[in-house]
């Protein structure tokens, strides 16, 4: 159960509610740490590229942009489904929210499958961490993100189990909102990663 003040803030009409962070403060500090780590990684990539733009452009052109774009669509759609799950629980329809979470998990599973196919193609083409500076960044950045997708799926799975049991409602949203915020972070960093690594040259 959330505190009375938090419940009051959540159950008032949306336009009259006091400003409030959706989810636990602790998860938001964790999210900030993650954003910082990804941010440093992205900027390191951009400055490494500045030393050798021709090599980066040539190897980047050989990446599978279809796979990158499909994965962007899958992550965005998963994020949207999670939003619907949060809204459903807030309206007192936690089991409906569970179905949205299951759909989000399916999209996340699709992301993992596409990523596996992409890595398999890269490895069979002889691409490795040591084959070039670009490939070192491409593999380590995408794999670092991939690990976050896996953790995000574990979290979505836990939210799904609890939603099915009807654990979330307008008076008890903290766990659901916290997990949702983490998942959106995974989506958010990919929105920068995709153009940066796959498209901008």
């Amino acid at each position: 159960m959330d505190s009375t003040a938090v419940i009051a803030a959540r159950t008032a009409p949306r336009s009259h509610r006091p400003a409030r962070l959706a989810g636990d403060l602790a998860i938001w500090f964790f999210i900030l740490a993650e954003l910082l780590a990804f941010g440093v990684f992205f900027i390191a990539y951009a400055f490494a590229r500045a030393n050798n733009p021709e090599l980066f452009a040539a190897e980047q052109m050989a990446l599978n942009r279809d796979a990158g774009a499909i994965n962007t669509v899958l992550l965005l759609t998963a994020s949207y489904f999670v939003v619907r799950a949060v809204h459903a629980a807030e309206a007192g329809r936690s089991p409906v929210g569970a179905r949205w979470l299951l759909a989000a998990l399916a999209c996340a599973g699709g992301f993992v499958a596409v990523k596996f196919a992409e890595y398999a193609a890269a490895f069979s083409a002889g691409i490795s961490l040591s084959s070039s500076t670009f490939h070192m960044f491409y593999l380590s950045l995408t794999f670092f993100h991939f690990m976050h997708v896996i953790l995000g799926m574990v979290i979505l799975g836990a939210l799904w189990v609890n939603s099915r049991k009807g654990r979330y409602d307008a008076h008890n949203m903290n766990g659901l909102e916290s997990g949702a915020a983490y998942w959106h972070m995974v989506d958010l960093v990919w929105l920068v990663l995709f153009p940066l690594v796959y498209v901008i040259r």
Partner: protein
Amino acid sequence: MRHDIRSADRRSTVLWVLLIIATVLTWAVGEGGAGGPAIATLLLGIALLKGTAVILDFMAIGRAPLLWKLITLGWLALVCALIGLAYWKGMP
């Protein structure tokens, strides 16, 4: 309450459609193979807009205290600006 949630659903649905369209646009630019400062700026601008939509609506930062808006949107703006700076520095 229910009415509030229905309108929140609608807004999120519209944003989701726009985010997908923006993704297709980024993909199409990549397939075209174009590069250079104008294209890099366009793509970073699209990423900035997409990230802003996810932060404000999906992450519900639009309803969070001002400090959290500044931190999250500031992170996005700073990352995009530094990437832009690095690309400008590395123009062939």
